């Protein structure tokens, strides 16, 4: 059974339709890449999954449970949204680290707040888990640095550790390397690649075509708010069937 099932999602901003009839599913342990030109609705889709936007139509199920259905108000209760958000993690294009906290505190803050509410883990356990995550990101020696003391690539890796700390079912990335200098994208992509090798379930919006092809088990090409083509990355990226996909990919032909 798919861990994530997205059915007929539709989203408008005022009169503009930004997403229409978006449907796909994702198996546990798989990575899905979403590619597409600017304004095609990729960010909006991730924001819908993370309950930062509310779709006008459609349904989202995680592990067989409907967590959102636009036609069923009982799935939209404000009080449940927080809990439902925890199924997903989101890594932002521009990191959005909390500047007043160290790298480690960024990673542990939300988990500490949750533990305080629900009981369970102690502060030391959470800190230990946080250090392990930073270590996994290659940042063991940066735990006590503040975000402004870190490079963009290091900041993004802290942001990934922060998202992982809550052990989401599905980790979403919104162009995780777009805000980085070219020489810093490698370190972030390496970390995501290793997450894929550990069978982390992920959705990765990216403009790095080679990366999408190598890492993803499935790729979706979006244009104008619709899914134009989806399938095996080697098929879609190397042998696109649709004219719009071909046109889009031709811009990356040398990249």
């Amino acid at each position: 059974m798919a861990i994530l099932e997205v059915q007929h999602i539709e989203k408008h901003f005022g009169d503009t339709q930004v997403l229409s009839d978006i449907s796909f599913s994702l198996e546990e342990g798989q990575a899905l890449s979403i590619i597409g030109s600017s304004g095609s609705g990729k960010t909006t889709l991730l924001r819908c999954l993370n309950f930062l936007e509310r779709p006008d139509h459609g349904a989202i199920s995680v592990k067989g449970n409907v967590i959102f259905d636009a036609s069923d108000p009982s799935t939209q209760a404000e009080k449940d949204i927080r809990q439902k958000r925890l199924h997903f993690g989101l890594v932002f294009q521009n990191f959005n680290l909390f500047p007043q906290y160290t790298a480690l505190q960024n990673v542990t803050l939300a988990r500490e707040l949750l533990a305080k509410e629900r009981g369970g883990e102690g502060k030391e356990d959470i800190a230990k888990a946080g250090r392990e995550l930073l270590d996994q990101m290659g940042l063991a020696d940066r735990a006590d640095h503040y975000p402004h003391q870190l490079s963009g690539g290091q900041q993004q890796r802290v942001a990934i550790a922060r998202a992982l700390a809550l052990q989401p079912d599905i980790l979403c990335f919104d162009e995780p390397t777009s805000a980085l200098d070219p020489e810093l994208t490698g370190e972030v992509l390496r970390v995501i690649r290793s997450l894929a090798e550990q069978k982390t379930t992920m959705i990765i919006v990216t403009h790095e075509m080679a990366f999408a092809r190598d890492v993803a088990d499935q790729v979706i090409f979006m244009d104008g708010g619709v899914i134009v083509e989806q399938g095996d990355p080697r098929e879609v990226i190397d042998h696109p069937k649709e004219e719009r996909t071909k046109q889009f990919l031709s811009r990356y032909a040398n990249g």
Partner: protein
Amino acid sequence: MFSFFASTEFQTVLSALNTGFVKTLQLFFVTLVGAVPLGLVISFGSMSRIPPLRWLTKTVVWMVRGTPLVLQIIALYYVPGLKGFHIWSGGESGRFTAVAVAFVINYACYFSEIYRGGIQGVPVGQQEAGLVLGMTKRQIFFKITLLQMIKRIVPPMSNEIITLVKDTSLARVVALQEVIWMGESFMKGNQGYAGLVWPLFFTAVYYLAFSGIATILLGKLEKKLEYFH
């Protein structure tokens, strides 16, 4: 010269100035205690999602910031009485209340604009990062936004607070017996040159000391928040 400092005239001047200065301090702290929270309420009003409330608040802020504080003090103190509403009790305590109300309203409007800038200056991405991590709105405000907001408002608030130190002297327009009023009463006397210069000199010393201390304390706070950007 030294005999002047030992003279009873000097003692009289000094004790009068001290009394005036206590009044000045009272006005300063009452204004801060009233305007700091009221400013927050006004800033929420000016960011309200209800348009009439937003417009009303913005109009009041515009009027208060667009007219001199002296004018507001005079209007608030005299106009109700002229219309037959004797809301201020007579004498010094009535004057103080009227002046304090004018100061609180005036400074709250200035503070509200600073707060608004501080709140809106924190990127929405901060709030969204908190939401995605399962935090409540309350946790996000207290654990993430608040400190970033304070960092943003401390420098402009410092400016306003130093201005407030000096603005307290405007209270003498309705004869509130703050430090300048006290000093002036000697200048008008018949002590000649010494009667003019020394009260002026000591009044300036009081203000310098006061604003100096305020500057140091606020500078310390600013330094404390320098550890993050």
